[in-house]
C-alpha cells in the first residue's frame, strides 16, 4: 500500500497538544482523573521514543501501573484494572508528554522491557495484517468464494422472508387502524422475528415503531410516517434487482447487511486533510455507538465514521473535535454516501496549522434555507435519511418559550429552524446560547426533519463541542414529539 511506510514517522513523532490529548478521554471523569495524575501523579521511568510513550505510575497498590501508548493508532496498554479506554494512567501520561514533562529517550534501546514487548507485538500484528491483504487479493480461492456466495444468497432469502412478514404486519396494522395499534410486547416480538431473519436494520425500525403509539400529541401521524418508510424499505428490498445499484446499496445497508470495511479499503480511497467536526457517543444500554463527523478540506466532502464499544465502554477509536488528520477514507456504497471507513492515516491527528498553513478550523457554512434545500435534495437520493451534517453560519439561538421550542434564527431575525426536541433537553443548547451571547454563531450539527441537532460551535478561534446534547439524542433515539414544531412552515 502506498504510503504505509510513512505512517507516523513525520506526523506522529511531533508532540501532541494538550487539547488533542484531552479529546481522547472517553468521558469527563477520566478526563478529570487524568488531569490529576498528570499534575501530581507520582510518575517514574517515563520516556518517549519511536512513536511510543511509556511510564510507571504509582497507585494505591504496592506495584506501580505500567502505562504505554503507541502513538500510531493511537493504542494504549496499562496494567491497571480499568475497563476504560484509554485509562486515566495512559491519558495522564500523554498529558505529561504533551506538556513536555516526558523527555525523549535517546534511542529505541531505552524502551523498558515491559513496554517494548507490547509494542513489538502490536507492530508485528500490524505488519502481518498488511502482508495478509495482498495475499488475499492475489489468491482468491474459488471454492471459498462459491461457499460465501451460497451463504450470502441464503441470507438474502431469509431477509426477504422477514421483509415480507413485516409487510404483512404493517398491512394488518393499517387495515385495523392506527387507533388500535398495539403497544409493547407485540412490537418486541416482531423485532425478534426480524433478528431471526438476520435483518437487524428492520428490527431496529420495528422497535422504534413500537415506541410511537401514544407517544404524545400527533403520534398517529408520526407512526404513519415511520410505517410508510418501513414499508418503502421492505418493498425496496423485495425488489432489489429492479433498483439502480447505489440505491440498492442504500437499501441493503439500511436493512442491516454490512459491508466489510477491509474490503472497502482495498478499493479506491479518498485522501484529504480531514477536520474532525464532532464526536458523539450514544449508549443504548447494550452498545455504545460513537459517531465521528469529518470534513475534507480539499474535497469539501462530509464523512461519518462509526465505532462501537460494549455497553458502558467507550469505543477504541477516538478523534478529538477540532483536529485534522491527513488520511484515506473509503465511503460505503449508497445513493447518498456519507458513512466511511478510515484507512491509512498519513499524519495526525494534530492541531490545524495557523495562518501560514492556511488550514481552516471552520469549514464553509450555509444559511438555513440552503441547508433545508440540501436536506431535500439528499432525501431524493436516500428517502430514509433522518438528517444530514451541515455547518450553519450566522444563526442566533432563540431559547424555548412556553410551548415553543428552541430555534436557530437568521441573524436578521427573518426565518428560523426548530432545534431537535432531544437537543432542547440537553445541556448543550445552554452552552450554545452562552457562546452566542445573543449574537450570531457558526454551528455544526445534524439537520433533519425533526429539527437541527447542534453538535459543535465555533467561536473566537476555539472549537466548542456541545457535550450536553449527547444524552439520549443519538441516532437510535426514538422519534420524539416535536415541541410546538412551530418553526417549520
Amino acid at each position, binding site marked *: 500500500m502506498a504510503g504505509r511506510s510513512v505512517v507516523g514517522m513525520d506526523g506522529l513523532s511531533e508532540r501532541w497538544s*494538550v*487539547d488533542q490529548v*484531552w479529546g481522547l478521554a472517553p468521558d*469527563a*471523569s477520566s478526563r478529570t482523573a487524568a*488531569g*490529576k495524575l498528570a*499534575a*501530581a*501523579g*507520582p510518575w517514574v521511568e517515563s520516556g518517549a521514543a519511536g512513536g511510543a510513550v511509556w511510564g510507571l505510575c*504509582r497507585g*494505591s497498590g504496592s506495584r506501580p501501573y505500567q502505562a504505554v501508548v503507541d502513538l500510531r493508532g493511537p493504542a494504549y496498554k496499562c496494567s491497571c484494572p480499568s475497563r476504560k479506554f484509554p485509562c486515566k494512567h495512559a491519558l495522564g501520561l500523554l498529558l505529561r508528554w504533551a506538556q513536555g514533562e516526558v523527555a525523549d529517550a535517546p534511542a529505541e534501546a531505552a524502551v523498558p522491557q515491559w513496554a517494548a514487548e507490547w509494542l513489538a507485538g502490536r507492530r508485528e500484528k500490524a505488519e502481518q495484517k498488511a502482508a495478509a491483504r495482498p495475499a488475499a487479493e492475489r489468491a482468491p480461492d474459488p471454492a471459498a468464494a462459491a461457499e460465501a456466495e451460497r451463504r450470502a444468497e441464503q441470507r438474502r432469502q431469509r431477509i426477504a422472508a422477514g421483509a415480507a412478514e413485516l409487510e404483512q404486519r*404493517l*398491512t394488518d396494522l*393499517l*387495515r*385495523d*387502524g*392506527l*387507533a388500535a395499534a398495539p403497544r409493547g410486547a407485540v412490537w418486541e416480538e416482531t423485532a425478534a422475528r426480524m433478528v431471526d431473519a438476520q435483518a437487524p436494520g428492520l428490527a431496529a425500525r420495528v422497535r422504534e415503531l413500537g415506541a410511537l403509539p401514544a407517544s404524545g400529541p400527533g403520534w*398517529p*401521524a408520526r407512526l*404513519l*410516517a415511520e*410505517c*410508510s*418508510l418501513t*414499508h*418503502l424499505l421492505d418493498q425496496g428490498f423485495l425488489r432489489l434487482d429492479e433498483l439502480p445499484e447505489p440505491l440498492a446499496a442504500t437499501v441493503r445497508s439500511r436493512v442491516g447487511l454490512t459491508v466489510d470495511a477491509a474490503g472497502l479499503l482495498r478499493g479506491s480511497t479518498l485522501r484529504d486533510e480531514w477536520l474532525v467536526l464532532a464526536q458523539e457517543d450514544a449508549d443504548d444500554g447494550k452498545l455504545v455507538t460513537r459517531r465521528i463527523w469529518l470534513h475534507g478540506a480539499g474535497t469539501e466532502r462530509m464523512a461519518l465514521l462509526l465505532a462501537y464499544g460494549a455497553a458502558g465502554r467507550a469505543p477504541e477509536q477516538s478523534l478529538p473535535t477540532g483536529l485534522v488528520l491527513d488520511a484515506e477514507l473509503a465511503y460505503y456504497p449508497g445513493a447518498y454516501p456519507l458513512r466511511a471507513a478510515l484507512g491509512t492515516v498519513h499524519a495526525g491527528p494534530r492541531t490545524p496549522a495557523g495562518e501560514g498553513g492556511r488550514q481552516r478550523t471552520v469549514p464553509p457554512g450555509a444559511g*438555513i*434555507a440552503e441547508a433545508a*434545500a440540501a*436536506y*431535500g435534495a439528499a*432525501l*431524493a437520493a436516500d*428517502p430514509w435519511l433522518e438528517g444530514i451534517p451541515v455547518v450553519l453560519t450566522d444563526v*442566533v439561538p*432563540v*431559547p424555548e418559550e412556553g410551548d415553543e421550542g428552541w430555534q436557530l*434564527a437568521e*441573524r436578521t*431575525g*427573518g*426565518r*428560523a*429552524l426548530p432545534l431537535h426536541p432531544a437537543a432542547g433537553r440537553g*445541556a448543550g443548547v*445552554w*452552552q450554545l446560547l*452562552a457562546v452566542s*451571547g*445573543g449574537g450570531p454563531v457558526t454551528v455544526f450539527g445534524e439537520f433533519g*426533519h425533526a429539527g437541527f441537532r447542534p453538535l459543535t*460551535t465555533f467561536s473566537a478561534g*476555539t472549537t466548542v463541542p456541545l457535550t450536553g446534547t449527547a444524552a439520549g439524542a443519538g441516532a437510535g433515539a426514538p422519534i420524539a414529539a416535536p415541541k410546538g414544531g412551530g*418553526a*417549520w*412552515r
Partner: protein
Amino acid sequence: MTAGTQDLAGSPAGGWGELVAAAVVGAGRRGVDEGALLDAAAAATVRRRAGLVPGPARRLPEPAAHDPRPRLPAAARRRLAALLADRSGAGGGGRRGPTPDLAELIPEWLRHAVECGYQAPPELLPPLLDAARARIDLRPHALALAGPRGLWLAERAPQWAPLLRDGAAGPALPDPRDAAAVRALWEEGPRAGGPGTSQVRSALFAEVRRADPAGAVELLASTWPAEKAEDRLAFVELLRTGLSLADEPFLEGALGDRSRGVRTAAAELLAGLPGSALAGRMAARVRSLVVLDRSEEPPVIAVEAPYECDAAMERDGLVATPPAGMGERSWWFGQLVAAAPLAVWQEVFDGRTAEEVVALPVADGWRPDLLAAWSRAAARQHDSAWARALLGTAPTSPPGEPPAFTAGGPGASRPPAPSGPGRTAGGGENVPGRDPARLLTALPEAERAAWVAEFISAHGLSEAFRLLGACAVPWPEELGRAVVDALEIARDGGSYPWSFSGVMGLAERCLDPSYAVRLEPLAATHEEAEESSPGAAGYWSEAFQRLVATLRIRAAMRDELTTPAALRP
C-alpha cells in the same frame, strides 16, 4: 422538488391529514387498499420532509452586555473545566485515596480568577452556574466571574433563576444611593410577597447599610411594625455591619420587640457597643456583683451572683431560664458579665491590665464562670488585649466538653502562669464556654497564627481543627511548619491518618503551595514501626501523597492564572 410544496399531488383525497385520518380509523373501514395507503403515505412523508422550509423566527434575544475583561489563558480554561467536571463526579464515601479532591479547590480557583480580572469562558458558563446554584459558598465569586454574560444566560434559563433571586447577582438591585428606587423596591417587598422577596430585600438592605448606615436604619424604621418576625430578626442581624452608637436609639427600641429572637439580637449588638446605655446598665450591674477583696494578699476577686433576674434585666437581653443542669444564679451572672463592657474591670480592679486581672485568684470557685464570660465578652467586643490575656491560659482539655457549671465548682483556683499557650500545659483548668477559636478572632491575623502554631507545637493536632479554621489562608510559615511537624509526629506515633483527616483536609487547602517540595520525603512509604497499627505507614504515605499532589495542583492553578499576557497561548 420545490421548497414549500405541501399539497399532495397524487393523493386525490387531498393532503397528509386525509391519509392520517384514513390510517387511524383503518383502511378496511374506508375501503382503501392498505398497500396503496402505505405507498401514498411514504410518498407524502418524503415529500413533506424534503419540502420543509424555515418558518418565521421569534424575537431574537437581546445581546448580552459586552464584557471587557480578558479571556482566560488556555491552561486555566482547561483547569476550570476539569474542576467543574469533578464537582459532580467523585465525592461520596470511600477512603480518601492518594489523589486530590478537586471540588475542594474550586473556591480558591474562583477567588484567584476574579482577583486576576478574567471573564469566564462562555462555553463553561452552564457548569459554572450549576456549581453556583449547588454551593452557596461558591456563589459570589462564581457569579462575579460569570459576569454580564452569565447573568444574561441565567435570566433565560429557569434552572438558574434562583441565582437571580438571591440578590447576589447584583444588577437586579438599584444603586443604594438612589433613595427613590431603593424605597420603591423596599416597600414593594412586603406587598408583593412570593418566594425570594425576603432575600431580595435582605440583599438590598445589606447594600444600603454598607453605603449609608444611618439611611438603612431610617429605611428599616419606616416599615418596622409591618415586618414579619423572621425578617425583623434578619434585618437586625444585618445592622452588625457598620454598627455604631448612632444605631442605639433604634436598637433600644427593638429591646421591647414582641419576638424574643429580635430582643436577644438587639441586646447582643448593644452589648458589643461599649458606649451604649445597655452597656452602661450592664456595667452598673456587674460592679455590684464583683469586687476586689483587698484584705487578702494577693487580693482575691469576690463574686456575689444575682438573686433574681428582673424585668429590666430581661429587657436587656438576659434569658431567665437556665439550660438544664445549670444553677440560675451562675447562669444570670455569666450573661451579665458577658454583656458588660470590658473597660469596667479596669475600674473595678484598681487599674489592673487584662492580663493582671485574669491572673487574680477568685474566691468560691467562680473562676471558670468569670473566665468563660470574659471570653464571650472579648470575642463580642473584639478586644485583643483581653483575648490575648485569656488565650494565654490555654486549656489543656478539649474545648467542647460538657458544661461543668455549678454554683460551687472547684475550690479556690491557683493563679495560672501568664502568657503563652504552651506554657500551661500542666495547669489543668477546665473552662467550658471559653472557646479559643472564637477568642482568636479578636486577635490580629499574624498573632492568631502564631498562637495556634505554638498551641499545636505544645499539644499536637487533636484539638487543632477549629483553631486552624480561625486562621487566615494561606498559613504563614511558622504555622505551616507546626502543622507539618505535628502530622509527622502523629504518623510516627503509629495511629491511622484518618484520625487527622480534618486537619489534613485543611492543610491541603491552606498550606502555602511552596511547601510541596519539603513534604515530598514524607510521601514516600516508610518502614512500619513495630508498635504502629497495621498498614498505617502505607496509609500515611498515601495521605501525604495526596497533600503533596493537592499543593502541586494549587501551585499549577496559580501559575496558569498569573502567566503574563505576553506569554499566553
